[in-house]
């Protein structure tokens, strides 16, 4: 592998952070500590991490309702994320947004989104700005297989193609949009096949293989940065849990879930790191433990943080001059 050990272990650590963060989220919800809803990213870690590993810190991403993984991979602070889930003033969105709306402008994260496909035109616009300003930034747009059936998807990809914008449309095809299986609700076999209608490259990757994701995204990002236009990448993956908090998953079988769990992206990557002699079991175990500690610290931070004040309800509705 041509990537440095440092980078490879960074990837491993990010994936473990996402996994553990999500399991903690689920636990806190079950303890009634999280209000509202959330969408877990367990099983899809390689997609976010492989994609964000190919970006510069100054590059932008747009995210989705299932955004915790993207947010962690782009470098957000676990403490502030956890605080946001608990609705605290110290959260990334000061407790106003919650799980579905985490944004972190300091890491180029333009926001998760409660509206399916909401981020697709926004990513297109961020990329347009980069082109107009010549700032050499690239925008990576995360969205799901379900989002690919919206009008916004069609409009945006066409615009990005005619203007040759520096944007990578990264579709996480996790086989379902809520209860809707992709093969019944999408007319083409692969979402990447649609790239042909926008005259842009369409690439399919194994979304559970972090290095394959990285390679495909890196190539697309390099092209975008050179002014050679957008790419549509489809990462085939699977969400292990229900769509959101209470989903009995009547639309799929437990056997199918078990099959996909065998392709656990973290386990696969760990095995690769070990078999290629990049890391030892002790090193990986140390990372796992480090992450467990970070998650615990994030949780403590969130619990101890103050809630926003009701008097501040109307704060942030408008930008104040000079802010």
């Amino acid at each position, binding site marked *: 592998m041509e990537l440095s050990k440092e980078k490879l272990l960074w990837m491993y650590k990010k994936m473990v952070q996402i996994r553990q963060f999500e399991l903690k989220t689920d636990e806190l919800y079950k303890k009634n500590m999280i209000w509202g809803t959330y969408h877990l990213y367990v099983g899809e870690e390689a997609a976010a991490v492989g994609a964000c590993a190919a970006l510069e810190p100054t590059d932008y991403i747009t995210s989705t309702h299932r955004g915790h993984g993207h947010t962690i991979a782009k470098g957000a602070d676990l403490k502030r994320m956890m605080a946001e889930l608990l609705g605290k003033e110290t959260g990334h969105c000061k407790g106003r947004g919650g799980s579905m*709306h985490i944004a972190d402008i300091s890491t180029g994260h333009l926001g998760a989104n*409660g*509206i399916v496909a909401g981020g697709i035109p926004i990513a297109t616009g961020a990329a347009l700005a980069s082109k107009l300003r010549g700032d050499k930034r690239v925008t990576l747009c995360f969205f799901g297989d379900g989002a690919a059936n919206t009008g916004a998807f069609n409009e945006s990809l066409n615009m990005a193609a005619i203007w040759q914008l520096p944007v990578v449309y990264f579709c996480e095809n996790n086989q379902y949009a809520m*209860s809707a299986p992709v093969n019944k609700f999408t007319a083409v076999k692969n979402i990447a096949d649609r790239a042909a209608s926008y005259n842009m490259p369409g690439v399919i990757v194994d979304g559970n293989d972090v290095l394959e994701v990285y390679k495909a995204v890196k190539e697309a990002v390099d092209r975008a940065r050179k002014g050679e236009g957008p790419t549509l990448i489809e990462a085939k993956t699977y969400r292990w849990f229900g769509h959101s908090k209470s989903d009995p998953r009547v639309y799929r079988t437990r056997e199918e879930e078990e099959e996909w769990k065998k392709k656990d992206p973290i386990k696969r990557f760990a095995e690769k790191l070990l078999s290629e002699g990049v890391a030892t079991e002790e090193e990986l175990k140390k990372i796992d433990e480090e992450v467990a500690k970070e998650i615990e610290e994030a949780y403590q931070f969130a619990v101890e943080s103050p809630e926003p004040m*009701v008097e501040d309800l*109307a704060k942030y509705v408008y930008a104040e001059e000079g802010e």
Partner: protein
Amino acid sequence: MAEKLYIEALAEAIKEEFERDPNVFMMGEDIGIYGGAFGVTKGMYPKYKDKLIETPISEASIVGAGVGAALVGMRPIVEIMFSDFMMDAMEWIVNQAAKLRYMTGGQLKVPLVIRSPMGSGTGAAAQHSQSLPAMFAHIPGLKVVMPATPYDVKGLFKAAVRDDNPVIFFEHKLLYWTKGEVPEGDYIVPIGKADVKREGKDITIIAGSITVIRSLEAAEKLKGEGIDVEVIDVRSLSPLDTETIVNSVIKTGKVLIVEDDNKSYGWGAEVLSRIVESDAFDYLDYPIQRLGGKDVPIPYNPKLERAAVPQVEDIIEAVKAIFGKE
């Protein structure tokens, strides 16, 4: 009469309309085996699988296709999973469904129902919690209803399906699991008719959807303060039943309007205007008061979320203030 949940009464109405008219069908996301995001169609699949057209995530075209099917004689019911997502379909609601009848000199009609959950109180934050009926009531050509009780949801739903015009049908999420009396079988609650949900002589509270339930609770508590509250449920915003409202105001002389939408440019302002333009104006012995949601997107934090819309205690306080009690 049997007690039923709001959600059960609604499901009953949907099934009865499916059975009654072969042209009635429903379109929406996850309405089949999943039963819809709030479970309204739970258990209807597979029995009604031909009636439940499951769609991709394509709100604009779901509504647009509903308009098209309606034009050629079907009576589609469109479920939009959260009413916030209607914003993706505004073109086909506002520029198409609402106007086709008029623009074609009465040739076309659009017997379409768009039903959708609205409102806050579930921690779903700003893009899943809005109450926006006023926005639709502003558009000529649309009818807008928002039933508050299991009885009304069943009867109004049937009226909506049988109406020859596009009807936007709002269901506040917190109402789904409330109970009330619901008759068996067919009955209609007419669109455009308000309902006196509680009689009283001292003050008229005018409410809609969730705020009806909160106002009734407030009214019970205010009884202890010696204030006899009349609660009017507008039920339908467009058309609005001015007469029922005016008659009540003539009787009580005091008005509090309580809406769940945020207050500025809300439907309460329209109600207020209808009162002051009517004979009831001379009977008012106190300035009309309004309570509405704060002019903010709905926040995630539960305390903030609660503070963003009128609660029972806010209604009690507002009524007491009118009577000079603190």
